[in-house]
């Protein structure tokens, strides 16, 4: 029996997502060289090259929210609205998540919206970090000689903290969409835009109800 599928992400959303992935990968790898630091790669001309790559990728990443806003504003605001709406089901998620992710226990999990509480958290952390990365990165790039020393050192520190948060959340994000046996099907949602109705019913029951009631 052919499964019914539901479109969860449009082309613009998928484009900005994968642009984000590419830019983030370059930024994380080149940034890690200074963070760790990997002395042999950070040195001299190698360091210059990595810095240039980091800056090019930073501009790409800055395009992500812009493209999203220009080409798909309704989807963007819909997502943002969902992200910042927290209900008792989200509180329930925090109680149910260990059994849900470790044991596949779906009974205890209250019905979740299009983004479950964990995804909301991920989205918010990513958005806040993006903003802070942008501001502190801009200060360090163009303000090295114009801003006071304390501000520069705070910028480096905040850039570092964001990097830590971003990488930890990225690891979880990646593991859930590509490795976790019960969730990895969701990767198709970001690759092709569509997810099986069954998947949404199981994992995003509240969103499913919303879609059903819209259709009526």
């Amino acid at each position, binding site marked *: 029996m052919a499964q019914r599928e539901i479109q969860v992400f449009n082309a613009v959303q998928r484009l900005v997502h994968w642009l984000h992935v590419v830019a983030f990968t370059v930024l994380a790898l080149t940034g890690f*060289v*200074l*963070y*760790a*630091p990997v*002395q042999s790669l*950070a*040195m*001299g001309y*190698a*360091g*210059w090259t990595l*810095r*240039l790559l980091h*800056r090019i990728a930073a501009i790409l990443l800055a395009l992500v929210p812009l493209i999203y806003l220009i080409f798909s504003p309704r989807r963007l605001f819909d997502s943002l609205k969902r992200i910042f709406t927290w209900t008792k089901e989200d509180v329930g998620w925090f109680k149910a998540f260990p059994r849900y*992710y*470790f*044991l*596949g226990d779906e009974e205890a999990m209250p019905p979740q919206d299009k983004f479950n509480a964990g995804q909301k958290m991920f989205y918010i952390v990513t958005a806040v970090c993006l903003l802070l990365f942008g501001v502190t990165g801009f200060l360090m*790039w*163009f303000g*090295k*000689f114009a801003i006071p*020393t*304390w501000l*520069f*050192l*705070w910028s*480096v*520190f905040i850039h*570092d*903290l964001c*990097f*830590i948060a971003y*990488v*930890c959340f990225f*690891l*979880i994000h990646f*593991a859930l969409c590509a*490795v*976790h*046996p*019960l969730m990895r099907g969701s990767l198709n949602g970001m690759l092709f835009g569509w997810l099986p109705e069954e998947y949404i019913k199981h994992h995003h029951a509240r969103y499913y109800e919303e879609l059903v009631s819209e259709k009526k």
Partner: protein
Amino acid sequence: MTKAMLIDTSNCLYCNACTVECKRENDVPVGKDIFWTRMEVHEVGSFPDVRQYFIKRACNHCTDAPCVDVCPTGALYHHPEGFVVLDQDKCTGCGYCTQACPFHIPQLEVFDPLTGAAKAHKCTFCIQRTANGGEPACAMACPFGAITFGEREDLIAQGKERVAALQAKGISKARLYGEHEMGGLHVLYVLEDEPEAYGLPSEPQYPAMVTLWQKIAQPVGGILAGLTAVGLLADWLVVRRKVRIGEEK
């Protein structure tokens, strides 16, 4: 035993021979506002009771050097003889040292602000000369004996003698600077007034942000990422087992 330099500001006449000789010896770019050592004039007091202090400013070669701690390439390092060396071939011009130094000494020569191509500049104690038993170019050039190079302990004793002599002449504020600052500087100054009168901080501090960033945030970040990875691996193992049991049923 570590080496050091003693700058007797009471003998300095602001001739700039040290600046010139330093630029020549170390190929420091000319025509740019970049110096490995530079002369500063500080005016103190108000008319008619005014005077000028001259001081040679360069890297102070701290024992607890924040620049060495923040350098991501190993271009800045502690030489066994006590001074802080900058290896420009390794330097990538990130500029962290220029921000971390409590004396604001390292300078960045920026080739392109857009790409960030740059190199740091600072005094290396003329490593090419001192490593072979010579003395730094500035010390050699000074015609007034205001710059002495030698064993740090000897220079501390010599500096204290000079301070005592100045005090005996009625300069009550005379003091030796650098014996304890930043874990002990390898440039010692005989001053005739408070350090601030010469543009030196009386209590230079290792920047707290550098400690937070280097000693706390970076290791903690590694631990957090590691814990996340371990948690995910545990999750994968547990849930995979659960799924298999489910399939067998």
